[in-house]
């Protein structure tokens, strides 16, 4: 019984995705069964469409800038907060990651109002700023967790050996956490790349891939949408996999080599002491 429900759940979750992928490979324009054979014609079509190409380029540019800016700002914010002894530490951290709970609709409207008040022309720049607001809390949460897990004694050791704060950060802190930070930046990229709701409010005359899909759908249901969606799915999943692999690798590295919190873990294996 439980098995049947599980199966139903899995089908419910995955069937729509599989259908989209399946029909992106359909040889005819029909979006319904019976299935009439495989072809890559829809992929050909989107790759030769200048509109799709431009939208994809815009999405890549926005997502790249969003990821890079988040990486730099988010790392500095998380590092600063994880190393301060200030009483504002808790409230500030809350302020940084609480926007994670804001609905996209709200962020979109708020930013649109702000931009028009400041008389900023809507463009890909405003989209990037909006995406930064949206992905920052996700990045911040991951980066802060990784930085706070680090053994503070390692940074003290580096200081004791003559390193100033910047050198400690560059030569001791970053080498230990960069995989997690890069992973979190990939996540930020993925979130930005297929963001629609906020983008809808703050985008100017340009188009991004999600915007393009939406506007094509308004006209007619073109099978090439399936191809774009499938590629988007593949790309986003790939980024999530990279994030996951980097985070897991970093965690394993930390556990394996780390001078763990548990001093008992330091007890040498009996044979190791004399061995060369």
């Amino acid at each position: 019984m439980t098995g049947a429900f599980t199966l139903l759940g899995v089908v419910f979750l995955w069937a729509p995705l599989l259908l989209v992928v399946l029909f992106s490979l359909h040889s005819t324009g029909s979006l319904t069964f019976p299935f009439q054979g495989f072809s890559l014609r829809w992929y050909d079509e989107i790759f030769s469409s200048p509109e799709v190409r431009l939208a994809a380029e815009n999405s890549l540019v926005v997502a790249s800038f969003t990821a890079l800016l988040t990486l730099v700002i988010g790392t500095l914010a998380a590092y600063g907060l994880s190393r301060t002894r200030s009483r504002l530490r808790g409230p500030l951290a809350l302020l940084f990651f609480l926007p994670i709970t804001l609905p996209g609709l709200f962020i979109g409207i708020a930013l649109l109002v702000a931009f028009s008040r400041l008389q900023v022309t809507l463009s890909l720049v405003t989209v990037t700023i909006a995406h930064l607001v949206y992905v920052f809390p996700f990045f911040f949460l991951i980066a802060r967790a990784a930085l706070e897990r680090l053994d503070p004694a390692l940074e003290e050791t580096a200081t004791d050996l003559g390193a100033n704060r910047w050198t400690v950060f560059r030569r001791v802190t970053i080498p230990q956490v960069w995989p997690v930070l890069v992973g979190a930046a990939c996540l930020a990229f993925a979130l930005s790349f297929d963001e629609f709701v906020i983008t809808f409010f703050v985008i100017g005359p340009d188009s991004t891939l999600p915007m393009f899909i939406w506007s094509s759908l308004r006209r007619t249901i073109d099978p090439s949408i399936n191809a774009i969606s499938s590629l988007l799915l593949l790309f986003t999943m790939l980024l999530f996999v990279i994030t996951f692999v980097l985070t897991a690798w970093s965690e394993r590295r930390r556990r394996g080599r780390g001078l763990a919190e548990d001093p008992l873990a330091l007890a040498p294996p009996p044979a190791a002491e004399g061995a060369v």
Partner: protein
Amino acid sequence: MSAAEPRVRVEGITHRFSAVTALDGVSLDIASGELLTLLGPSGCGKTTLLRIIAGFERPSEGRILIDGEDITSLPANKRPTNLVFQRPTLFPHLDVFGNVAFGLSVARVGKAEQRRLVAEALALVRLEDYEKRRSHELSGGQMQRVSLARALVNRPAVLLLDEPLSALDLKIRLEMEVELRRVHRETGSTFVYVTHDQREAMSLSDRLVVMNEGHVEQVDVPTEVYRCPSSVFAAQFVGDANVLPAEVVEAGRDDALLAIGGHQMRVAHSQQGTGPAWLVLRPEAVRVARQGANGVADALTGVVRDVAFRGTGFSYRIELPALGMHVKAETRAAATPHAVDDPVVVEWDRDACWLLARDASEIEAPPPPVEAELNLETARDSGG
């Protein structure tokens, strides 16, 4: 710089953490080339003092001078000190060479010179072939030896060690003590060593600083601290001791007549005026004999309450009903040890006694600090 100038001068250091006074007016001179131990129970301020010398804490009051120069306001990375932490803190992303060379490369020492100095430092701690190893490929003892090399390679004016052996197994620990003594001899560096383990402190130090509740109780060579403790705390923390309440009846020029629980005896100590005193008696100075064996004069009769075999001998707890007290005694292995409930006589030499002043109101000695008894087992969770 005169020859008598101390390497490190700790001048009236007071340190408060909000409401707690961790250090209360501590002053110390540390001579160049000596191995000085800060010994005390956890919370006595020894680690705080070490961190103040290293520059990780700014003292509330007082100054730290190294070779006559005031370094109190110098940040940790600009001080000529290096610290070996309680846990090995090897950088996990660097190999042994990278770890040991860290300080040199921060100081922009040339590559060839780095290689030479690192090789020299690793040879000093006997890890010549370990340059390419990562920390997870090393045992706990090896990691601490790398930490030692990483600190010493910078030729610090003073090397600070914060319970560096406390995370290690007993066997490795004893080996490492020998290594530390050898490294200290070979480098001639100044070591300041923090520990709560009195056995380790006595076997390592040139001089011992006994600390308690933020102040210094006694500073002296280990044998003197053991023989002539300056306080009940020092007597109980350094080695094991019987601390018995007594009265000095008559104070002579080089001996004193002591009344202890109604008995009178002469002891070879005379710094004390008449009045209440503590009699400090090391357990190994107490002799135990069968009652009526061979009439010892001035002997006190008692009953064995506990016996424990210690390998080199036996340790007894003996009740002295006439005095209403218990004494601890350590004896060399005997063919036939005394058993529980055996009637025995105890005696001690008059020059094995040490007297300390006592307030008339104090009848019982304060209980000895716990670490003195459990030094090895508690080492792991003590933060100092």
